[in-house]
């Protein structure tokens, strides 16, 4: 007779795990602020209570009161060291039949290259470096922020509280995506890359799509010579000028939109985890770590993917649209 299994475990193991999880949940409930108001008689030792979180948006400065050394830049350096070390050791003695690390790095690169090729087609080889750098930067920054060393190792530093920089203990590491400067820098890199590829592929026609004065002047010439379609052409020319200038504004608004999309998602995830670790500690924050993993991956894909899409739109010529 086969032993019956529930969720892959035998019955006693399942009961044991369920009781363990329920106990952890109730222990967290009691030691949080909600439970200690309900069961005000039970006094738990001080180490079970989690301090009320106080998230600040500007990144904290460590050791010196200078804006050049913040805990987010230290985390960004950690990310860069991690990525460069991984790829360096994978590519050092590259064999035809790859070892495990080389296989893993090749898998990542091939997936990214196929993604670029699926959106951009022929230009994938040119777009691949910028897009995959942005993708790897965002995803590694988001994922290593879930390690235990982030937010727990405290060093003396300066925190922006109540309008001034106060000297307190601050975390040594903080996710680089939660400092608004890094998403802003990546958005500017994306904008400059899109403009560079657009001008390289379409030369002056790329700039002309924003300062669209040519149809207007052509139509005024036609109207002066009393040719057919002159007056209507003037109005259409005026509309084209306005639309072109709005397109130019839209290019710059994209920087703001990229910045706040990444920054908002990352800071919301961090505040969510902090809040739930305060309200219902020990068990309930775990699904939110899973959500943070997913959100990190999706935001990296969105940032890189949107950069790729705007690049491929910038290099396609719109000559066929005009009569």
């Amino acid at each position, binding site marked *: 007779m086969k032993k019956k299994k529930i969720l892959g475990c035998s019955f006693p193991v399942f009961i044991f795990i369920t009781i363990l999880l329920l106990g952890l949940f109730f222990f967290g409930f009691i030691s949080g602020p909600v439970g200690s108001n309900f069961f005000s008689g039970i006094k738990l030792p001080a180490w079970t209570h989690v301090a009320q979180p106080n998230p600040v948006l500007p990144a904290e400065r460590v050791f010196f009161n200078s804006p050049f050394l913040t805990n987010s830049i230290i985390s960004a350096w950690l990310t860069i060291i991690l990525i460069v070390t991984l790829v360096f050791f994978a590519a050092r003695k590259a064999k035809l039949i790859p070892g495990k690390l080389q296989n893993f790095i090749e898998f990542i690169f091939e997936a990214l290259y196929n993604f670029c090729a699926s959106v951009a087609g022929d230009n994938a080889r040119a777009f691949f470096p910028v897009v995959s750098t942005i993708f790897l930067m965002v995803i590694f920054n988001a994922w290593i922020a879930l390690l235990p060393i982030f937010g727990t190792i405290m060093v003396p530093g300066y925190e922006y509280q109540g309008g001034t920089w106060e000297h307190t203990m601050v975390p040594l590491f903080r996710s680089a995506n939660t400092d608004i400067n890094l998403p802003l820098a990546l958005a500017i890199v994306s904008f400059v890359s899109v403009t560079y590829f657009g001008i390289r592929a379409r030369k002056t026609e790329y700039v002309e799509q924003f300062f669209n004065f040519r149809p207007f002047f052509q139509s005024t010439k036609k109207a002066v010579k009393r040719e057919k379609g002159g007056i209507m052409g003037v109005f259409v020319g005026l509309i084209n000028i306005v639309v072109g200038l709005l397109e130019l504004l839209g290019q710059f608004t994209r920087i703001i939109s990229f910045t706040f999309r990444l920054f908002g998602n990352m800071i919301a995830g961090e505040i969510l985890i902090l809040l739930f670790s305060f309200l219902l500690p020990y068990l309930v924050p775990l699904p939110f770590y899973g959500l943070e993993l997913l959100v990190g991956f999706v935001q990296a894909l969105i940032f890189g993917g*949107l950069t790729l899409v705007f690049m491929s739109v910038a290099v396609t010529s719109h000559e066929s649209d005009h009569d």
Partner: protein
Amino acid sequence: MTAEATKLLAVGLAVGIGMLGPGFGIGLIGYSAMNALGRNPEARGAILTNMILAIAFTEAIGIYILIVAILLALVVK
């Protein structure tokens, strides 16, 4: 009304009314994507890619509201 009460009310109203837009928007995008997928299951790749793209744009609007709420709640005194 005190300043504290007004600030809390502003945060609640901002998030409550502001999140209606992206919520409706993403639902509409999903609805049209399901329609298109039902009509033409072979175009699954293209439909999904464009759906993810459109959802990213509308989700960003909700993130702007979140930024405003966080700013109001934590930074403004």
